[in-house]
């Protein structure tokens, strides 16, 4: 990749040690899985099973990893934003927050998310050029049946999204219904396998334990050939070691275990290793996402999967522990974005989120879109050659009038990144135009984008098929 700057936290020996320790944990300690069908198939596939405990020998790990597809595409419902992995340009993709239950609206009112806000949020994401796919927020249980929050939210997002959708199920029985609804949108299960417009998250519970619902995600998605972004959500000092390194080890081992399980059940199923690390503040016991050491641990995880195993990796690229859109928020999220842009990550997540991922904000989403623009530019790096050095022009010495009219400038002047909403004017013009802050400009963009009514993106027959699948899901799930 051209001139790419890369932050490697581990040297070659440390990377090798980390790989060995991940595989030691999975082959010697093993994992705990509460899913008899999955465990039985893992045993048939060569795993050593003792009750809920499942161990993967190093030879079996190697065999499973050999079937991880080197290339795959996460499809978009519109076909306009298909995401090829690895990204042909070496860039990363960006996704929004997943699972937040609070919506901080533009009037600064924070409340549980309504279905209309899910549609508005999805429409905003469609317009964000630096956001590549969306994830499901958590619609309020006052709006939809509590047993089926995830299926109702998915139906709403499917109808409105032009971009790929990442799904977080809430109950074991909902997993298959969610797959069915996504399949209905594209014309059936075979079509979904070929045209995966959705992918799923499955989460381990540290350390190395899977409850039934998350095991069900692995099992059903592997059977259906639906991509999974297996995820570990450790909290350093609480459910994983207090050291960022120890927490990274657990996260990597958990994600690796899920990748192995998926590949043993459904060889060739696309996977993206997703390590979303947190830490516990030892003064307040609050869960934090912006701790400095944990940021570096995320880089360790990205390095392990991308460099160590050539598996695409995903982590937080933004977010904050601040509760509001304030100075701390911007310092934390920008610092994180820049660090992660320099990592090996193929996906960066969390756009639009506040309050350690519990709240989403449309204004923050619009501003994150700007910050990610800068991060994309950083990922590209700078190539150093005679053309970029302007060596010929400098040797010619024809620069007494400066460079504003030089041919070299004409060739390169569009290259510097220029964020749409950041001020680039002088004081006089800024004052004349109303002294607008970044938040004012984000609000203007929000109003401009939502001038047009929120609209569905699918054809009538697709909407009908989704609604029919939703009705079936409702009958099956709502007690």
């Amino acid at each position, binding site marked *: 990749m051209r001139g790419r700057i890369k932050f490697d936290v581990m040297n070659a020996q440390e990377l090798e040690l980390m790989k060995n320790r991940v595989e030691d944990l999975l082959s010697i300690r093993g994992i705990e899985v509460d899913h008899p069908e999955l465990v039985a198939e893992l045993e048939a596939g060569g795993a050593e099973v003792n009750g809920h405990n499942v161990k993967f020998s190093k030879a079996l790990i190697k065999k499973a990893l050999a079937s991880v597809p080197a290339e795959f595409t996460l499809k978009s419902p519109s076909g306009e934003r298909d995401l090829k992995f690895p990204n042909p340009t070496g860039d990363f993709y960006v996704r929004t927050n997943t699972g937040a239950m609070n919506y901080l609206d533009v009037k600064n009112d924070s409340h549980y998310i309504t279905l209309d806000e899910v549609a508005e949020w999805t429409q905003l994401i469609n317009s964000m050029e630096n956001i590549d796919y969306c994830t499901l927020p958590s619609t309020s*249980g006052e709006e939809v049946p509590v047993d089926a929050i995830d299926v109702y939210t998915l139906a709403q997002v499917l109808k409105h999204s032009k971009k790929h959708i990442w799904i977080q199920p809430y109950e074991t029985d909902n997993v298959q219904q969610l797959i069915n609804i996504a399949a209905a949108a594209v014309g059936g299960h075979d079509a979904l396998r070929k045209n995966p417009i959705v992918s799923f998250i499955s989460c381990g519970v540290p350390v190395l334990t899977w409850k039934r619902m998350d095991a069900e995600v692995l099992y059903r998605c592997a059977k259906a050939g639906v991509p999974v972004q297996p995820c570990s959500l450790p909290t350093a000092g609480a459910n994983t070691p207090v050291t960022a390194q120890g927490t990274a080890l657990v996260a990597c081992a958990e994600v690796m275990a899920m990748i192995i399980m998926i590949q043993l059940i459904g060889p060739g199923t696309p996977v993206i290793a997703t390590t979303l690390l947190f830490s516990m503040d030892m*003064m307040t016991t609050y869960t934090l996402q912006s701790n400095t050491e944990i940021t570096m641990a995320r880089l360790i995880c990205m390095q392990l999967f991308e460099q160590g195993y050539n598996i695409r990796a995903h982590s937080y690229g933004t977010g904050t522990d601040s509760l509001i859109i304030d100075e701390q928020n911007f310092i934390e999220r920008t610092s994180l974005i820049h660090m992660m842009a320099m990592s090996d990550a193929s996906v960066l997540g969390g756009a639009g989120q506040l309050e350690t991922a519990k709240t989403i904000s449309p204004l923050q989403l619009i501003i994150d879109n700007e910050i990610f623009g800068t991060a994309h530019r950083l990922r590209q790096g700078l190539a150093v050659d005679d053309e970029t050095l302007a060596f010929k022009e400098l040797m010619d010495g024809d620069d007494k009038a400066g460079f504003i009219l030089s041919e070299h400038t004409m060739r390169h002047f569009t290259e510097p990144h220029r964020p749409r909403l950041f001020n680039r004017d002088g004081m006089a013009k800024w004052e004349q135009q109303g002294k607008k802050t970044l938040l004012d400009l984000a609000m203007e963009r929000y109003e401009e984008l939502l001038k047009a009514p929120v609209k569905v993106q699918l054809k009538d027959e697709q909407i009908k098929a989704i609604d029919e699948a939703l009705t079936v899901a409702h009958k099956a799930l709502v007690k």
Partner: protein
Amino acid sequence: MSQLEEITQAVVAGDEEKVSELCQTMLQQGFDPVGIIGQGLLPGMDRVESDYRSGIKYIPEILMAARAIAKGMDQVERHLGDAQIPKLGKVVIGTVKGDIHDIGKQLVKVLLESAGFEVIDLGTNVAKEEFIEAMRRTQASVVLISAMLTTMMANMKDVVEAIHQASFDHPVTVMVGGNPVTSEFAQEIHAVFSDSAIEARENVKKIMREAP
């Protein structure tokens, strides 16, 4: 320095072996066990908490002090034989069905025990019927319910509603906490909200003080 002060300082330092040895020595010398608890062990926790509130000490240091107190209590209990150390009250604690997160709950449990409460721990993934049965069986006046996952908040609401609808022959207070739980949510489901383990313990103390 008095022996009681030595115990207090060993609790502050989280030195459980020293606390145990000092308690054993004092008990052998005929000191009043209740005095050892009230003037030696518990003042240690008060000092650690005071330092915590001042931003000097961290949660692990509170836990170390709690562990040291537990060692001292072991000695006292051994000395008392069949006689029981009086408890400040009983509470039931558990994580809601569907959620197997344990850490926050354990933290609250340790802090409550170190403050002199009897804690009936139902573990994780606890059904509403189990909470109700435990409340009736133990006559506990406070039930603390935890959830770590956003997705489990509906279950928490369900449990709390079931407890409110159940009949008990003693007053029952429901307290909720955990990462996704907010004061608004707690208010909505008619439960007491605790934002942290420390706050949970303070709230339990307050509830017990104000109990009829």
